[in-house]
């Protein structure tokens, strides 16, 4: 048995009926127009959105995305050096630790580099990956990171989920003071550039999370702050 609501006495305005109808339509129209014209906001950071015009909290994925926390483990990337070569030296630590065995590496040798060894093939099967981040932890050279802040994009084929070194190598370059190409110089880096890199290089981070928080310009957080700036 539904409980009873006592019928309150209608006043004159309510009994005239139309003013109330018009007011109701007005409220609906106001919300409709607000959400229709101002609902889509460019700022991907939902929490930082301007709420003065639209209360709309729905995220229109994938055009809009929630920013992930800085330690979020996203799609892998191979960190490049300033000269475009990967930092990776093909030590197989990530492949060794990987519980899903999704990393395949083939090592090769540079004839002209202070680090002789490099990955000729570096393939990650993103379908097998369990996104545990052990590869990032295991890497002694800070050469693989999961700081892209994105998921593996969907695809219609399995083959498209197998990322090779060409797709993985992206993002801003990183150098540390103890990097051999800074200590010894490299034929692929000009002397002026080397000076600049040496001046800019940071000590190798002992606490990895600090470094990840500082990763410049490649996280969604960074994209959000960029969008805010515009």
């Amino acid at each position, binding site marked *: 048995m539904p409980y009873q609501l006592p019928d309150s006495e209608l006043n004159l305005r309510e009994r005239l009926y139309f003013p109330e109808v018009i007011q109701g339509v007005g409220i609906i129209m106001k919300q409709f127009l607000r959400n229709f014209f101002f609902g889509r906001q460019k700022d991907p950071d939902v929490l930082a959105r301007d709420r003065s015009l639209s209360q709309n909290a729905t995220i229109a994925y994938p055009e809009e995305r929630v920013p992930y926390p800085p330690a979020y483990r996203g799609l892998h990337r191979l960190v490049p050096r300033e000269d475009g070569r990967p930092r990776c*030296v*093909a*030590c197989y630590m990530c492949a060794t630790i990987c519980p899903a065995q999704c990393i395949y590496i083939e090592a090769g040798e540079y004839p002209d580099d202070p*680090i002789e060894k490099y990955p000729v093939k570096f393939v990650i099967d993103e379908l097998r990956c369990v996104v545990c981040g052990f590869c990032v932890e295991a890497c*002694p*050279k800070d050469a693989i990171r999961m700081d892209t802040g994105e998921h593996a994009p969907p695809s219609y084929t399995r083959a498209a989920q197998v990322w090779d070194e060409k797709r993985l190598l992206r993002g801003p370059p990183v150098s540390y003071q103890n990097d051999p190409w800074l*200590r010894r110089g490299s034929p692929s880096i000009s002397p002026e550039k080397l000076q600049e890199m040496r001046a800019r290089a940071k000590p190798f981070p002992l606490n990895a999370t600090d470094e990840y928080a500082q990763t410049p310009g490649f996280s969604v957080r960074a994209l959000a702050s960029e969008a805010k700036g515009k």
Partner: protein
Amino acid sequence: MADDTKQPTPAAAPPKPPPGPPPPKNPGFVTCTVDGREVVVKAGTNVVEAAKSIGIEIPYYCYHKRLSIAANCRMCLVEMSNAPMGKLMPGCQMPVAEGITIQTATPRVKDQQRATLEFILLNHPVDCAICDQAGECKLQDYYMQYDLKPSRLDVPKVQKDKRVQLGPGVTLDEERCILCTRCVRFMREVAKQPQLGVAMRGSRSTISAFPGQPLDSKYAGNTVDICPVGALTSTDFRFRGRVWFMSSARSICTGCSRGCNTLLDYLKDTTYRYRPRENDAVNQEWMCDDGRRSYKYLNNDRLLVAREGRGAARRDLPASAAAAAAGATLKEHSAQGSLAALFSPLASVEDLLAAALVATEGLGLAEVFVGGRPDGWQDDFLKRADENPNRKGLELVAQAFGLLVRPFADLPRAIEAGRVKAVWAVGAEIPDAAAAESFGKLEAFVCQTYGQGPLTRQATVLLPAAPHSEMDGTFVNFEGRPQRFELAYWPREGSSPHWKLAAEVGKALGLAWRFQSAREVWKELGPRLGDALPGFVWDGLPSVSRRRGFLPIAAGTVDGRLPGYRERVPEDVSGDTRFDLLDVSR
């Protein structure tokens, strides 16, 4: 705490020994105490070996039991009760003496080990990430075991050349070298070709070959094995894989008839390298560079499917169908008396037993031609001119089955003369590559082969055989010493061992013999060899009966490391049929 309790032991020894040596506790031997445990060893044994004999490890880099003592790494310093002024003494250099007390784990010794390691690692680049030795490196092991302290060096490390090509097979990284001089001593004392030396002084010291003279000794590869760190690395193996992924099978080198004992390091179905395995009677623990490189035929140019026909008419077919076709042709020719068998001394004893059985009982042959690789170089150390591992075994098998052994050179002549119109070859290795042409005149040529070669182009039926890495078996070396080798991985794709192919051919000929395993071949046919191999026990390969499936031994087993975890028993082979057939239960 443990050390405190052991302190009273040296104190309890008489402070003033009576004049004259005490009478030995065990006459003919020397008795001493290592870490409170009594050790009885032969006179002249050094402290490292004496401690090792009761399972106490004294760390060392420069010491090697087959080389002279250098005592330059200072890693094996221990406390000895007969040391002058109570100094720490190098365990590798000091022979044990009657009644002395040796302490290997006192705080003083541990401090010394830590200090030594810090000193050794002072200018070491710690580039384990790109170092091929990582995983079997004594620096890594001892650092984890004895040091575990960060470096206190705050000035830049000495930089040296990281890529010196010392010779065709050896690459030197000068930065990683700890100057133990094992390689120098090896080249001087064992290889007897003193091609290496230490150049420069102090922290600039490097191992180097003499100017203009590369390290081109045929035994240079051993310096890579005995290098305790990653300074000397194999150019052939360089950057090809990580050792902790690999497993080792106890195998025999097929490079020559010496039959050096090897560890065959493999990953999945690829052989990556040979390393010598210790056997005092055959190769001590050395092998030659040609032997080291001889693994390549196991991986490259392998024949993996059976084929029929020559030239354009060639087609692939299942191995059983090919064997049946082969059997039919061979039977026809054996009836006409125009058939010859060509056995390769590269095949194992089991292969040849099965093949000889088919040749005599199935094909009625009375003689067999012997193929094999042509002769190579020979020296007075390891390498033999005969580059076939099992020529002696072939002779024994032929003798056991009453087959007359004839040299290969007779076969092309017989083919040219038209006396032989069909050949069954077990192994396609021939000493004279030019003779392959004459095989084109054959009406039928059934060839069991590991890989492609000049001879295989002439075959009418090609059967893919599995080499020694993919089977259990035995080689008999030039001294008549039977040596077992074990299966590393299952035969690739369509290939199977010679004995199995021979049995298939025999089946097509109507023979009743069936073999499930190489062990069964030996069990059925081995007794026919009589007492040709006295004292030989097929199951005598140490610990073979403890092997479930094929549990691999790790690439670093010589150092007592755990097996590599990647290459366990394959999932789809839960039970090892060969093991089930084993009737011994040791």
